[in-house]
């Protein structure tokens, strides 16, 4: 057995992938992190306090992990789901009945709920350890935007099953936009934006209309939410996560007492 591993690890194939021996010496442990694309997100050495579960609660890491699960399960769901008012509901039902090992929708939904929870707890922990203080102010702000994006991801996805729960939850949520000051047709100040008695802001052109592509949650809204959910927001979130992780390192690694 030992001989076999020795042999495998000495082939050109193996060596072309892994450029170091088993990581049990300081040199190889360093190389394990430095020569791996994914691991080199991390520094080679970290403060012991920074990796204790009782310190970070692992919540940032779990949020990222859940984001990855969402990406994979979401991709699989996209194979089966068509975002039109006629087909959406039907496709979701079919998913349950026709797709083998049909827990992708479950995994996707429960992970989404969990991601909202873990991102809240992550923020809570960052606050309670004072980790937003200099030099990490900027990364806290990147985090706040990530928080908003996480909620928006979840919100846009909520509509896609196109059942009563979905449509009415989004109706309740987007009704708020009607009341946006100046820009919603039931918002304070909207009537000021008028010219010669002609109102510029009305139910057919206010922010809510722009959000839903219509006066109510209909087919246009479904397509808009689908595109935002599957492409727009994930791209934005992934980009910001890259910045977020990079910044954690640039700001001196996970916070600890000075």
């Amino acid at each position, binding site marked *: 057995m030992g001989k076999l591993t020795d042999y495998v690890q000495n082939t050109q194939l193996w060596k072309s992938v892994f450029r170091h021996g088993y*990581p049990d010496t300081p040199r190889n442990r360093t190389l*394990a992190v430095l020569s791996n694309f994914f*691991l080199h997100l*991390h520094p*080679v*050495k*970290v*403060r*012991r*306090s920074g*990796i*204790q579960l*009782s310190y970070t609660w*692992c919540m940032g890491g779990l949020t990222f992990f*859940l984001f990855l*699960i969402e990406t994979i399960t979401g991709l699989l769901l996209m194979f089966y789901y068509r975002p039109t*008012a006629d087909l959406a*509901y039907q496709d979701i039902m079919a998913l*349950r009945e026709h797709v083998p090992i049909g827990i992708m929708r*479950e*995994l996707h939904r*429960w992970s989404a*709920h*969990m991601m909202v*929870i873990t991102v*809240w*707890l992550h923020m*809570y*922990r960052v606050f*309670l*350890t*004072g*980790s*937003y*203080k200099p030099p*990490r*102010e900027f990364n*806290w702000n990147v985090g*706040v935007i990530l*928080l908003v994006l996480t909620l928006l991801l979840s919100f846009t996805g909520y509509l896609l099953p*196109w*059942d*009563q*729960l979905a449509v*009415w*939850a989004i109706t*309740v*949520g987007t*009704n*708020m*936009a009607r*009341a*946006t*000051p100046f820009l919603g047709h039931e*918002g*304070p100040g909207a009537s000021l934006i008028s010219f010669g008695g002609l109102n510029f802001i009305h139910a057919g052109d206010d922010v809510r209309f722009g959000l839903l592509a219509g006066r*109510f*949650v209909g087919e246009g809204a479904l397509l808009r939410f689908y595109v935002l959910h599957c492409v727009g927001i994930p791209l934005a979130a992934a980009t910001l996560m890259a910045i977020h992780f990079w910044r954690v390192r640039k700001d001196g690694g996970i916070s*600890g*007492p000075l």
Partner: protein
Amino acid sequence: MGEQIKHFVDWLTQPTLYFSLSVLAIFAILKFRAIFSKTSVIVAFFAIGTAFFVWAWDDPNFNRIITKPDNVPILILLASVVYFSWLSLHRAYINDERTKKGLPTLEGETGKQKVFTWPDLVYVELICMVLFLALLVVWSIKIGAPIEEPAAQARTPNPSKAPWYFLGLQELLVYFDPWLAGVLLPSFIIVGLCAIPYIDMNPKGNGYYTFEERRFAVSFFWVGFLLFWVSFVILGTFLRGPNWSFFGPFEYWDLHKLPPMVNVDLSTYFWFDLMGNSKAPADPLVRELPGIVLLLGYFAVLPVILQKPLMAKLFDGERRHLVRYHLMMHLLLWFGLIPIKMLLRWTIDLKYIVGIPEWFFNI
């Protein structure tokens, strides 16, 4: 006996009591943290909580609301928020005691040691991921994702609830119009969160848990996050039923339970009850003058009056921090408006402090 406990719980969870007791609980826990940060307290909490669940499980109303698939995450939220709040307090208390004795904090002690990312960190991450994935898979096999009737524009379900993470905002709709509850206040939450690092000038408590070095900051976040966000989500999920009326956890969701709507505007109180007029002025600006004066006093005069003492306390009285001070006050005053409005609603049935429906301008 069982029925009496159920009635008691239903009574205890009504919004007014629920909210007041939560405020008391938060401040009691922070004040008596020496006791509440003990390990036995959290063990007892979860033991009693579990016992309560087991006991209440058979109640049809309780069971119906608890076992809705989409409500399972809220239970996880509740349990994890309680646990992690306790954990942070536990560590903060230990750290504060150590600091008093001149010892380094827990983080300070282990922070000097550096360890290799491989294997120390990589393994923690791996174990976290595997356990979490296992949990998610089991959960997904056990509980199917819900799907209701196909969408129908004509049939409004009652209650119509926003997704659970926005229920805190939906709860605010009881007290505020949508332009505040749904647009302005959420925007202020985001702006306020972004502003935190630029307002909090306290250099202490960076990188370790503490309470005594950041009394105001930690208490504020507990109140903001635990009370006004998480507890409102829980209230909205489990205790709000048809017509957004309140229902205790053991109460049947009766479609006909309508809240009495007798709320009165401040201007009505002023012109009719105080001035004894039989008619309010026609011009909305004059009619709403009392409320406008009050709000101007609150938002414009109060920060100026408090400027000297608070600036001295928070920013060493240095005038270059004036912008921070006013930003902070503005955000805090908006935040304060929420409990103020809630109290006014509960005590004098106040509808609007300033109510100009003609312009959709109601506060």
